[in-house]
């Protein structure tokens, strides 16, 4: 399956993401610059992590208004898989493709460590490599990962099975409501998550729990 990685100025985990997609999918992804207005013909669009525009104003806010976002929106509407990791998640919420917002961590500090995630919904194109309820390791590295939504939105997200991952008990690093670490859109073809599965895909990383996510998104699993 073909994939594209969208690059905004200030993103910095683009190389990590390119390496992960290539190593798991076997094909180097296409890189798309934020000023472009169209996307190549791919099955998976990924917005990686980092600090687009320095995260100035609000994390992801400025990038969410870039020219390429219209094309991403259209692709998403057509059912193409879109994955936003960390800053990518923030960008997707700012752009309205995913519900809720990511606020400053409750500690007000940047946090980088490995947490445990509970796979909440394993019945989607992204998560079918895991089983529901499975606990996996995954690193986080962010300053604004505190998931918030008003109660109606939250009820809807919970009710529709839109929660993809939760921080396992006792490991919520940022104060997210309902321990939410990742959410889908209603159609489940758009996923945003704060943790970095791309940094846990081989023995040298100390584990490979992140692999299954990319393997599924790239149709490398049955």
């Amino acid at each position, binding site marked *: 399956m073909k994939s594209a990685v969208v690059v905004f*100025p*200030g993103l*910095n*985990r683009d*190389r*990590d993401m390119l*390496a*992960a997609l290539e190593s798991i999918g076997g094909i180097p992804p296409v890189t798309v610059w934020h000023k472009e207005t169209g996307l190549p013909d791919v099955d998976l669009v990924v917005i990686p992590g*980092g*600090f687009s*525009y*320095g*995260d*100035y104003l609000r994390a992801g806010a400025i990038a969410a208004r870039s020219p390429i976002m219209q094309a991403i929106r259209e692709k998403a509407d057509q059912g193409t898989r879109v994955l936003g990791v960390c800053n990518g998640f923030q960008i997707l919420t700012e752009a309205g493709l995913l519900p809720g917002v990511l606020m400053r961590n409750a500690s007000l*500090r*940047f*946090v*980088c*460590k490995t947490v445990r995630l509970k796979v909440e919904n394993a019945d989607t194109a992204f998560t079918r490599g895991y089983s529901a309820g499975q606990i996996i390791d995954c*690193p986080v*590295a962010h*300053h604004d990962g505190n998931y918030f939504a008003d109660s109606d939105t939250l009820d809807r997200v919970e009710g529709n099975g839109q929660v993809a991952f939760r921080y396992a008990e006792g490991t919520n690093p940022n104060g997210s409501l309902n321990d939410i670490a990742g959410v889908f859109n209603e159609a489940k073809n758009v996923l945003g998550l704060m943790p*970095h599965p*791309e*940094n846990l895909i081989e023995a*040298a*990383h100390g584990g490979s729990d992140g692999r299954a996510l990319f393997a599924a998104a790239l149709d490398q699993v049955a």
Partner: protein
Amino acid sequence: MSIPNDIQITADIVANHGLSSDEYEKIKQLIGREPNFTELGIFSAMWNEHCSYKSSKKWLKTLPTTGTRVIQGPGENAGVVDIGDGQAVVFKMESHNHPSFIEPYQGAATGVGGILRDIFTMGARPIAAMNALRFGAPDHEKTRHLVSGVVAGVGGYGNSFGVPTVGGEVEFDARYNGNILVNAFAAGLADTNAIFYSKAEGVGLPVVYLGAKTGRDGVGGATMASAEFGDDIEEKRPTVQVGDPFTEKRLLEACLELMATGAVIAIQDMGAAGLTCSAVEMGAKGGLGIELDLDKVPVREEAMTPYEMMLSESQERMLMVLSPDKEAEARAVFEKWELDFATVGRTTDDLRFRILWHGDEVANLPIRELGDEAPEYDREWVTPPAPAPLGDIPRMDVGEAVLKLLSSHRFASRRWVYEQYDTLIGGNSLQTPGGDAGVVRVAGHPTKALAFSADVTPRYCEADPFEGGKQAVAECWRNLTSTGADPLAATDNLNFGNPQRPEIMGQLVKAIEGIGEACRELEFPIVSGNVSLYNETNGRAILPTPTIGGVGLLPDHANMARIGFAAKNQPILLVGAPAAWGKHLGQSAYMKDLFERSEGAPPPVDLQHERRTGDFVRSLIRSGMASAVHDLSDGGLAIGLAEMALASGIGAEITALEGCDPVEVFFGEDQGRYLVTLSVDPQDEALDKLWQDAEEAGIFAPWIGTTGGTDLTLGAAAPLAIEDLRHSHEEWFPRFMSN
């Protein structure tokens, strides 16, 4: 500051520029007239301690700086060391002490920004960072605020820029109450055939300004960095520099893209005294003059004077000499990244540094003399007095002492600090903070990795700067070795008090001698560095703190050692031990932290022994026999064992040593020792072979105990549950910071 350029220069103005009257006379002699105000500013920037190294140069020259792998030693933005396969590691460490005391977040952030710029200016993509921090006593009123701001600033910049922070140091001591230390290290990877230097070549070529716009930030900053603080510190505040990691990240990408086009002839980042130092350096090194037209410089404030523009320390700026036929291509790269790009001058053949502004020539100075003729002092120095001899050793139960030390500010886990740093970005971090050295894989190579460590024990340096200097180098070398790396080369960041005091100068001289001796013996050359003097307030100097940052190469990270015990029932060897395992309590943490006593000589470093032992440990790691390795330093054997147990959750039982004093055994800080666990069965003959090899190498490597269980049992002392150790170890920092 709208002082006219033709103002009469008075003795007061000269003094305010940090220049002595002799220095001013020398300036007049060199240029054959009185300087105007802008020229005086330029001289003050070039001739202050920070840029000219006038007090330290004589001694820095004695350091070993060459080696078979050294491509570039001190003198450029960073040192360059060959790591094979056409690649090099580029690294340096630099201080941002004074700015961080005044504005901890921005001071530390711009320190990180500055060192990263030094690295990518040379054509290298940064792959690792470290930070060595020293704060005042925990109970000093400013300390918590400074810790919080500095750590947030280091993280704020490095995380956003996108470099993994893989190591560092944090230490507290009342001697840093008025002068904290923020030493930032960065390393990058470059191809050996694509390293960029600051030496300009070719006459009539465009001098191009890149990056952020110039403001009044830090005007006079370099001068301040070289001045002692007094109570009037508030008044010395220049406009604080604010870091913009977003711009720096774009500058990195734009510079590397530009370098790949072949357009760059010379490049220099604008650090202290930005435009002045960078332009002079490029011209002087290339034997060329430089003419700058300040009307072309992108500015972000109105009515800036030439003086201000020449001394501005606005961050995220670069100066380049470009090949004229590539100017358009270069401009396109910078426009893509939305950075300022302006041709602000040209190279000339007359060796003059000429500044034009509003149609006038506002400065015209001999470019070589600005740097080469900077004063160089052979300052008076005295050998620092030896500390009082070590008195009686007070007793404490070994277990109680371990718990107390682990929960003290010195040994408490630094997790609160390093969890604020992105340690994983890049996907190549093999060892993150918490072990002996950070390790980062060389991307694209199947087996190679680089190890990084920053070390110094200031209380040793205070007691004996020569031995302390040696020890800093040896400990850094040992930390690299503990991962299995071959130590390659080092960078030094020499933080001291006022060099015009002979006893301080003596500390500097002796520490450099010690560093030099250790670097020579260990074949660990110094390839870059930084000197920070005048770290004192009201006549009270910091502890002498020569931080050593080292880099090592692991040929195959499959054979890499870590600090945590790997499994239970493994023999633990104390490699490099003296017959009594450990003895030296002078200047130990045991004496200092448990009894507030700081007498006695620091532990001496036998460099031949260091080398033999390190080489032996490395061979054990490479052979696959060593399953975990940790060097012993601060706190001795007890702390070393506790750290190995904590990193793994596996306990250990250490045999009681008959006839020895347990305090000396467990808390002595004898140098040149490693704890090594083995993956071989104790009955295996491999172990006999190991001891035979050790004996032949002249190394004592006693089997001191075995891993296993959930307690740490130190000789005859009552067992300590690892969970209790963990509680002690993890508790201090968060509690301190939340108060």
